[in-house]
């Protein structure tokens, strides 16, 4: 692959790969590392991929595998298979759906378990069908469907929790602590 091809490939896929990586790693530096690692592997091995229509899936699969490999060093990958879908799917939607911002969506995604987060992020990136997501994650299609269903439920719960009013007590405690702590010597008292 020549450099222009490589640059074209980077331009085409790095934003969505980064967003996928950010949902996995939950912090920007690690997400950037994952994306760079993925393109580095492509630079070394991409020529081995004969079917060029599979580039996108290859990149997402590689990034996911790299994430798993990195994670394996820290802890065992929690193996959770879902045999049953919740009986009743959520009917409630966050009331202020229109007010959702990008950072809130990412924060909500990052707050849910990886088991659901990974297929859900791939789904919302709108680049893959559920069949392709199953291939990337190497799990059955039925498992992808059940994880998407459960994942959406958890995502909605995360939005609802984020939008719930904060307890007023926290503010009271903070005021009390400030008023009961005398300023240190040489430190401004802030009035």
């Amino acid at each position, binding site marked *: 692959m020549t450099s222009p091809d490589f640059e074209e490939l980077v331009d085409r896929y790095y934003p969505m790969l980064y967003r996928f990586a950010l949902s996995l790693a939950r912090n920007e530096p690690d997400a950037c590392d994952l994306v760079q690692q993925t393109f580095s592997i492509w630079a070394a091995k991409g020529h081995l991929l004969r079917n060029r229509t599979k580039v996108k899936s290859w990149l997402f699969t590689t990034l996911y595998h790299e994430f798993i490999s*990195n994670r394996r060093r820290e802890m065992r990958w929690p193996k959770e298979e879902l045999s049953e879908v919740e009986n009743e*799917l959520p009917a409630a939607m966050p009331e202020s759906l229109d007010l959702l911002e990008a950072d809130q969506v990412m924060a909500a995604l990052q707050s849910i378990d990886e088991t659901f987060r990974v297929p859900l992020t791939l789904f919302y*990136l*709108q680049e893959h069908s559920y069949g392709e997501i199953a291939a990337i994650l190497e799990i059955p299609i039925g498992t992808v469907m059940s994880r998407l269903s459960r994942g959406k439920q958890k995502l909605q719960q995360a939005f609802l929790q984020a939008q719930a009013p904060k307890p007023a007590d926290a503010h009271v405690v903070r005021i009390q602590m400030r008023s009961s702590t005398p300023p240190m010597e040489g430190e401004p008292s802030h009035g």
Partner: protein
Amino acid sequence: MDRREVKLVLQSLRPDDLTTNDPAAIEALVFVESDPDLKAWWETHQAFDQKVASQLKQVPIPSDLRENILNMRKIKQLPPQPPRLGLWLAAAAVMAILCVAGSFMHYAADGPLARADYAAAALPLLHENAPHLAMVSPDHDKLIAWLKENHAPIGTMTSPMNSLPTVGCQKFVIHGHNVTLICFALADGGVAHLFIVDQDALIDPPKKNEPEFGGMPGGWSIVSWSDDRMSYLLATTSGQDALKQLL
């Protein structure tokens, strides 16, 4: 297909692409048209999916990420750089001495070479901490598998090294001898580079289990040692203390 199954299928359909050849999806889409409650649920669900998907696409990308990826590629494409001036001078001095001594045999291709020359040949391959790596992975097992497959020398790594994530590996040929390079990611963000070569490749291999520390131009701290079969050269720009922690 009951209502629960219909919901399960519908939730797996991408909000931006409802054209599908999947019989189950088609059946679910037909079913939903005949059930007003389900249709209401489906419309609300689609609105939710579309909102989440559109906002996910708005998540900002770090401004330097694209440049970093492309720079990484450029670094990989760089041709081997000539040794720095200091190394040239050192090599010239060694050559001059060897000419006088009539010891050119040591430099014959495939013959054993002096440890100093080995280090002088190996360190420029690191390209100032950005060596060309054929295999990039934090997984030791993957690296070892690649090295075995490519008939590169495989030695015994120390316990601290075994607990560090790897960056990647490469195989070089220096004076006809196969040399392995394994790079480790250090906790401080630096990198340690381990060269492994068969002991027989060196005229004066380091002593067994007696690490010898030193330095090389370019801010490199190095340590070398041997075991029963292999000789090791570990280099980093993170300082000698970083090397000690790896032994």
